[in-house]
């Protein structure tokens, strides 16, 4: 089964470590180029918004960050569940590596939202369904990180974290559909899969470029952190010893 082979080849931490290491520089380069292009489009090509003036330019980081915050949570919960259900160590390590980056994008979405809300709504913060559920997302990320850090046995910590991540995943559709289910101050979706985007083409292009930039950034930083976690957790493995030039063979034999 070639498909199975491909699927599980990189489940070995040593192979993942090498592959992620090879990809990371390219991902950084892609993130920088896409961000450069997106910022150029966003500030110099996209026109001034007719009703919001220049304040709308926050959209080019606000919406991509909010999308990433939700996407990364689902990816984190997925790998945490795989790590638990299939007893796959690497999947659990990847879930741990995603959490801080997801928390960062959630914070960015909330921060830029406050800086956009003040000039447009007159308030930094309102207890609106969209904002409140996004704040809960931040607490879910922080709770996951605190929980896995608090339990000494790494695999037990992984399992506890997976349970929290899976239960918390119910919050993601709540965030996404909150603007439809409740009467919110936050506006509805400007871009959806089922309708034509409600914004100028150059604005949309800038926003998509920034989304891809954030995507590449997320991959790069998660891979970097995952490689650190692999080294920390697989510390005693023979392949780590070879990799870092550890001459003592005690660990190698034990592994």
């Amino acid at each position, binding site marked *: 089964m070639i498909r199975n082979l491909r699927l599980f080849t990189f489940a070995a931490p040593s192979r993942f470590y090498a592959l992620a290491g090879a990809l990371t520089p390219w991902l*950084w380069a892609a993130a920088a180029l896409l961000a450069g292009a997106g910022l150029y489009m966003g*500030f*110099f090509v*996209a*026109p*001034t918004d007719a009703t919001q*003036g*220049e*304040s709308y*330019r*926050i959209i080019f*980081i*606000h919406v991509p*960050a909010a999308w990433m915050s939700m996407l990364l949570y689902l990816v984190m919960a997925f790998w945490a569940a795989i790590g638990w259900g299939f007893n796959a160590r690497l999947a659990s390590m990847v879930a741990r590596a995603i959490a*801080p*980056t997801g928390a*960062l994008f959630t*914070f*960015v979405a909330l*921060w*830029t939202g406050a*800086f*956009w809300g*003040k*000039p447009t709504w007159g308030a930094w913060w309102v207890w609106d369904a969209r904002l409140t559920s996004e704040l809960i997302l931040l607490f879910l990320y922080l709770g996951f990180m605190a929980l896995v850090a608090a339990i000494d046995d790494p695999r037990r910590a992984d399992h506890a974290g997976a349970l929290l991540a899976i239960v918390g995943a119910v919050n993601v559709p709540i965030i996404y559909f909150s603007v439809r289910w409740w009467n919110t101050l936050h506006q509805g979706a400007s871009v959806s899969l089922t309708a034509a985007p409600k914004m100028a083409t150059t604005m949309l292009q800038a926003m998509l470029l920034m989304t891809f930039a954030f995507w590449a*950034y997320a991959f*790069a*930083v998660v891979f*970097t*952190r995952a*490689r*650190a*976690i692999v*080294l*920390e957790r697989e*510390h005693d493995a023979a392949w*780590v*010893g070879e*990799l*870092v*030039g*550890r*001459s*003592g063979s*005690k*660990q190698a034999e034990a592994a």
Partner: protein
Amino acid sequence: MNWRDASEFFAMGGYGLYVWGSYAITAALMLVEPWLASRRHRQAQRAAATDTDPET
């Protein structure tokens, strides 16, 4: 082109505080996080490398 000069660009039509306040914090976080992750990776490499027999 949206801006006649640099000061107009930085003023952002009167929304400078909000636009640059958003972008500055985002940029700062997205520079610090990769730095922290790389530092953690280097520390893990060092820890693995120095975990040799004390004799060697």
